[in-house]
């Protein structure tokens, strides 16, 4: 382990630095009245507003990161002292992948993808290898009101050496359980970056854009809170388990009429005409039985499947897939 020594040293330095000025310990003042006005009414209101913006930025910029998976580049935000990162589902993708985390000052650390929600576009990543990190709190998107001011940070166009996370200020247009729309402009590379309310809490994660300059869509923070434990465990949330077979209507047992190409069933080696007798350790007497057992499985779980092919009994392993609900 030739890197142990310098890394330990670096760790100690980093820790000392954090102890001296722990951004997490920094408190953001309650927003002044001007911030909650539908529109600031004077230069003084605007000045109060920008002072609050700067206080928020002091705390949230150090927690904004760039995530790199191979050549792709997205953004993220650290939300726990031990380095949990919220991002977009299409940035982190499937659990268990290695990912590079570029901190706000350009330092790169290793990370791993945890769970994700492909339907709502939520994702989670963890910085591996220990350490303490500057982080921000997660707020409630459901409390956002149309017209409320928000702040976006991220790495539009990917991480650029010497450029700090890019700040945008705008207002909430619409909010639903699945999306928050603002006029904080976003572009490729911003995906996974955080949207903050004026108290510096994460209320959304950048997800996608439409043609109009005001069509900037964020994943509401609530979904992360609701699925937190599953995301931490590396599970795929908000989806149905998927196998990829079609029932033989004429058969009473679990005989397959067809196997969908490139599906989990096809990957496991199942063929049309196979009769499934056991699924995930449970005896199945009919197709409906099998579906019931399948619905109880978690996507990406490896389960045994016993089939009858002609006179032959075959033991196959299937990795459960997923599809949108």
């Amino acid at each position, binding site marked *: 382990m030739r890197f142990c020594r310098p890394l330990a040293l670096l760790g100690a330095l980093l820790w000392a630095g954090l102890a001296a000025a722990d951004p997490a310990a920094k408190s953001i003042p309650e927003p002044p009245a001007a911030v909650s006005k539908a*529109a600031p*009414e*004077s*230069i003084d209101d*605007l*000045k109060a*507003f*920008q002072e609050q*913006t*700067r206080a*928020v*930025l002091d705390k949230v*910029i150090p927690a904004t990161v760039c995530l790199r*998976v191979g*050549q*792709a*580049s*997205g953004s993220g935000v650290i939300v726990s002292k031990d380095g949990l990162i919220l991002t*977009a589902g*299409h*940035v982190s993708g499937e659990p268990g992948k290695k990912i590079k985390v570029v901190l706000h000052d350009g330092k790169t650390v290793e990370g791993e993808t945890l769970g994700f929600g492909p339907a709502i*576009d939520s994702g989670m990543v963890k910085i591996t290898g220990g350490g303490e990190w500057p982080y921000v709190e997660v707020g409630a998107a459901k409390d956002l009101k149309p*017209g409320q001011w928000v702040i976006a940070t991220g790495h*539009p*166009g*990917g991480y650029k*050496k*010497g*450029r*700090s996370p*890019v*700040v*945008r*200020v*705008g*207002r909430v*247009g*619409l909010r639903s359980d699945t999306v928050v*729309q603002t*006029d*904080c*402009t*976003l*572009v*490729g*590379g*911003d*995906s*996974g970056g955080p949207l903050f309310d004026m108290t510096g809490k994460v209320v959304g994660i*950048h*997800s*996608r*854009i*439409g*043609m*109009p*300059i*005001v*069509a900037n*869509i964020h994943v509401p923070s609530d979904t992360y809170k609701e699925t937190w434990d599953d995301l931490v465990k590396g599970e795929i949330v908000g989806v149905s388990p998927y196998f990829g077979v079609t029932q033989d209507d004429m058969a009473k047992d679990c005989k397959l009429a067809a196997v969908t190409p490139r599906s989990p069933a096809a990957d496991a080696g199942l063929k049309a005409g196979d009769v499934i007798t056991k699924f995930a350790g449970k005896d199945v007497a009919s197709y409906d039985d099998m579906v019931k057992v399948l619905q109880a499985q978690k996507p990406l779980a490896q389960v045994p499947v016993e089939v009858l092919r002609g006179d032959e009994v075959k033991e196959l392993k299937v990795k459960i897939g997923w599809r949108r609900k």
Partner: protein
Amino acid sequence: MFKRYFIPALVVVAVAIPAHAQRGQNPKSNLPAKSTPAFLALFKPTAEKAGKSTVRVLVDGKDAAFGAVVSDDGYILTKASEVHTGRVSVKTGDGRDFDAKVTSTSETFDLAVLKVDGTGLVPVEWSASSMAPVGNWVAIPGAGGDPVAVGVVSVASRTLPPPYGAPRIPTEKSGFLGVVLDLEAAEAKIDRVSEGSAAEKAGIKPKDVIVSVDGQEIVNQESLINTLLGYRAGDKVTILLEREGKRMELTATLGKRPADLIPPKGKGGSRGDFQNRMGSDLSDRRTGIPTFLQTDAVVKPTDCGGPIVDLDGHVIGLTIARAGRTESHVIPSERVKALLPILLAAKPDASPSERVDAARGALAKAEADKLPSDVVGEARRLLQAAIADEKWWKEHPLEQGPAPREFERGPAPRTVEK
């Protein structure tokens, strides 16, 4: 040859925006909150003073840019790439019209100096750009003072690595080295060398780090790509590289770029660029400014070229480009102030040799004052341009009228009017 630098991971979807925000139904509701007339009006008190120093620049009678008045006797700074062709005129906030002449140009910073025959113009008072830190409001005054765009400072002023200037686009004539860069590395590190390429013939190997090309420092991958795009097929280049901690120099004769690596003429259609064009018009020239700060103000390309102020009315810089969906770029006051004496060194009616002397003097002063390297570099480039101009005039003694502007001086000389 080079893989894309990164593939931005943001999915574009047809977003279901409810009726009030649908495109074309009510254009006003498609405006960001910061662009609504009521919100812009809020910034009027802060934009008023700088607005007196802001003029509208027109080309052939059409809005082309804003300009910043830099002297009371008629010198105006504007965005050069917007006034390259056509008849240039200026309209002041108090309604006066002037014909304008381009007297000098900084191609690198995309700045042009205009001269009008007018008096009583109000020059800009430049303030430190640091007066508006990241998160502070900024406003772009129109001619006369009504704000046309506002936003916050998104990124503080920074200087990019060279080379600078307008982007270099690969063509059939571009030289080709034939390497694939290691995208995980910060520096220009070779990942693979293409078979039969100029790089292979020169002896470049995977894991080599390119340090300089013909003395031009290579600080990262972008800078290698941009530097090499300045060469043509057949050009010889001296490459300094680092291999296993040792530096060595190689000579490569650049090859022809494969046809499939030449973007179709007109649009360069990368996904990042496509997304950046979504929702607003961009400036034609929007990259390669050496030093700039970023704001999220959504400014029209024709509203670039003038001053930008903070909430106290301090002019913190000059808006130089609408650069992307999320960004507009501003040359900070410090750079504008440093460049002004260089750009104003020669009188508009100076002879070619007087221009060379003026440029030489400006460069000497910039070096003596230890100005930043991007400014000194531009002073040096302007001296070279003045020398090339003088030579051109010696070779074309029958020419009449003003000296051709640098970009007009192509390989073919102009037709001599008799």
